[in-house]
């Protein structure tokens, strides 16, 4: 009899929640539209690659070698080349930030190369953005290196290097940073959505006075918990599926894992986020505050401590320890593995276990914090 009543209550509360989701566009907008918008903004906007870097080229040498090399720079997608006659002009361009770097070939460049003495390419970069500076250095080296390789192949140049490095990139063969960013962004976005869904919906019930009426019915605490977790888990997973579809179909990110693994692991991740949102909602009864706290307590730690943007290996030990309680950290690792490497259970299993542990931890804490009284 008591289980029949339990299912009657659960059915009632679930049906209410689903009707609300269907009729109030705000939850659908939050779960489905917002991830899409964020994914497109970040997916196209946030990239770690640099293309069309403006550089000035000063060629004091008119020889065969230097013009060949310069052509390669001009044809490269990475650079937009401005030729200037003197170093002074080039420096001026760098000072006013019209260019981000200077490529300088001295007058005896072609002769030295031809003579086997090894030509020198001087590269000056604007180091204000250290990351970008390193990228420019790398690209110059790549372009110049390819040119040397070609010349070696043609027998035109002596190679002074006894060992050649055969480079091969695994998992992300095109070294496309988007393949790395998009799965990570899905993690960040779904962290925010998961927390917001539960935190906002509960705060809305307080604001509209419906929570008070709910509390005076014979609802058990478990009913309240399930009534919020089940519908928003399903809604959140639809958002997650949509994000993965966009990543693969529109951004062209490879997906090498199995969908079964993705489903199970992202479920755990979603439950951890929803649980965290419910935990917040126990203390917050105003939607506006709930949204703010969700961003500060949920999104920002995920952003900084998930290892997506900032490499956790190079952060101080304290921060590395703190990062272990951020669910996004594990899911960033999981999504990178699933998208680019495949079902590598040695990575997925420990991360999945941690997520499962966190989901249980947050949901249990939320359950204990749910109260049927108006005071805490």
């Amino acid at each position, binding site marked *: 009899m008591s289980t029949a009543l339990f299912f009657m209550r659960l059915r009632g*509360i679930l049906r209410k929640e689903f*009707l609300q989701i269907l*009729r*109030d566009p705000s939850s659908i907008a939050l779960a489905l539209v917002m991830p899409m918008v964020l994914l497109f903004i970040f997916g196209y906007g946030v990239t770690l690659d640099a293309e069309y870097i403006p550089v000035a080229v000063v060629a004091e040498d008119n020889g065969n070698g230097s013009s060949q090399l310069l052509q390669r720079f001009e044809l490269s997608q990475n650079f937009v080349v401005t030729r200037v006659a003197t170093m002074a002009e080039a420096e001026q361009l760098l000072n006013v930030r019209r260019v981000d770097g200077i490529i300088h070939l001295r007058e005896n460049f072609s002769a030295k190369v031809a003579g086997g003495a090894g030509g020198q390419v001087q590269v000056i970069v604007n180091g204000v953005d250290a990351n970008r500076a390193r990228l420019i250095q790398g690209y110059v080296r790549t372009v110049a290196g390819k040119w040397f390789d070609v010349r070696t192949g043609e027998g035109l140049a002596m190679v002074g290097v006894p060992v050649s490095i055969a480079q091969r990139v695994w998992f992300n063969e095109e070294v496309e940073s988007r393949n790395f960013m998009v799965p990570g962004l899905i993690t960040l976005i779904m962290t925010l959505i998961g927390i917001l869904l539960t935190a906002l919906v509960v705060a809305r019930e307080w604001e509209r*006075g419906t929570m*008070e009426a709910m509390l*005076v019915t*014979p609802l058990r605490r478990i009913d309240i918990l399930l009534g919020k977790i089940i519908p928003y888990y399903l809604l959140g997973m639809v958002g997650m599926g949509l994000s993965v579809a966009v990543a693969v179909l529109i951004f062209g990110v490879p997906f090498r894992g199995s969908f079964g693994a993705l489903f199970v692991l992202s479920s755990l991740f979603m439950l951890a986020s929803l649980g965290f949102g419910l935990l917040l909602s126990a203390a917050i009864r105003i939607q506006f505050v709930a949204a703010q706290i969700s961003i500060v307590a949920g999104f920002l730690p995920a952003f900084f401590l998930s290892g997506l943007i900032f490499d956790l290996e190079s952060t101080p030990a304290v921060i590395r320890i703190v990062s272990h309680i951020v669910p996004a950290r594990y899911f960033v690792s999981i999504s990178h593995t699933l998208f680019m490497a495949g079902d590598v259970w040695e990575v997925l299993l420990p991360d999945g276990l941690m997520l499962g542990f966190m989901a249980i931890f947050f949901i249990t804490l939320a359950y204990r914090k749910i109260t049927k*009284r108006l005071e805490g």
Partner: protein
Amino acid sequence: MMDGDLLAASEKVQCDPVLEICGLHKEFVAKNKKIVHALQDVRVKAMRGRVTGLVGADGAGKTTMIRIAAGLLVPTSGSVTVLGLDSVTQTLKVQSAVGYMPQKFGLYQDLSVSENMDLYADLQGVPRAERPKRYDRLLQMTSLAAYTRRKAGALSGGMKQKLGLACALIKSPGILLLDEPTVGVDPVSRRELWKIVYELVEKDNIGVFVSTSYLDEAARCDHVVVLHQGQVLLEGAPREFMTKMRGRVFEVAAVSAKSVRRLYAELAAESGVVDVTIRSGKVRVVTEKEKQPGIGFLVPEKRAIKPVEPSFEDAFMAMIPGSGHHFRQELGGRNLADVPDGQDDAVVTTQNLQKVFGGFTAVKDLSFTVNRGEIFGLLGPNGAGKSTTFRMLCGLLPASGGKISVAGYDLHRSRARARARLGYMAQQFSLYGQLSVKENLRFFGKAYGLNNSRLEHRIRWAYDEFGLKQWQDKMAASLPGGYKQRLAMAAALLHEPDILFLDEPTSGVDPFARREFWLRINGFAQQGVTVVVTTHFMEEAEYCDRMLIMSQGETLAMGSPAKIRELACSPDNPEPTMDDAFIALADGAVNMDGGTGKKASPEEQRS
């Protein structure tokens, strides 16, 4: 019911309490760590088959008490037993046996009427087989049967309230807890709700525990508990309270309609007077003791005085300690002049005013005039379009159609100049909580462009007029409600406007502050300030010279209080109240056309 039956019934219910509160204390810890004693040593019983009313001013502890009974709050000490169950240790059992309607009704706006009912039936575990019968009865009782598929959010205030009640009654509870069920609902719906409640009490023999701040509703209860500052002041049958007041309540008629307000102010200044109000065009006076010989107005030849039957409100006002003092403090030394006659120049005029929000017409074809020195009331239930009209008058909201002129300026063209002549007090008082009283006044004065010497002069005036001097360095947020209202009004009056717009100044303010407020407004009007005021308390219309009753954006009636009341005059009800008039108007039983045989012409509107 015969007297004998009543006696038998009362003996039966005496031994069957549905709610027993014993030695109840409730403390809250405020933000500044101070302990607030919300309820102290409260002992209350509510019986089966009876309606027990809980009355008191705002902050008296009514809501706290209902919430404790519903198991939403835990008492600091004392015991609360609901239907024989302890509200703290057996909360879930209590909650499956009570029906509770919170102040906001607890409805899901996106769900339809029947979906809301299904939800509460599921939560309360009402067996599926019993539902059709139960639903039929509730829908028929609340007259919602035709609206089962409409979303709760699209219902009118009165219908929402009835749906809230239906949801609270879904499982035929043993006790029904209602927390201020009729706040902001029109008089028609209020009456219907009480009819439903009494039907339930009679047929199902349940107990009802209801809090209310409407004193006329308290008079309908079988038993009333008066709360004052968290303590039970008195309890008993309303009739007992009223009987004790015999010989202390009088009606004084004024010589002419114009002098009612002056008479009202004069009587309020008398010592030995506990309460003065304007009711049905006459001044109603409650005295401290029976037939006090010292009171001047009781000398019969001076004025037409008639002892009248006391109401519960009279009893309530007499019960609360020190209520008479307010009046005399307010009126110390103010000169009282008759309403200046013959000033029929229009200060506010609207013509065919309209406001459309998307596809929804909030205000339809509204035309009226307000004359200098008049108190003009804009009345109607929540959602009638009062606030929208008001915002258009103050130039805060552009009109969709029609003309408005304020203080001789066309609001379309010279909004700024018109604004300098008007003072506006918004519903939420718009004060800066973190600034002191003095700083608030300085800010508002500067905002209206007062120079330093004039500003200092006006601030001194505000201190005297509103008794704010001793509060000048206190933060506005820390003031008691009544003083916040005074400060807001002082801020609106600093630049000596000709016209004062007050939007719901008395909502959420207790009966005492409301009385003070009307006395003060009365004073300003006598000094020639024009006052336009909105309210959803129908009885406050009596303080207005003229008024406009709105419902769903349309004009129901306009005219002096006496004229409006006349509309509802019938052989059954020779002396109708404002509520009666509203109900008759809303029913469509009478209208301005029917009353006069033709549409009110501009000449009539001005008379």
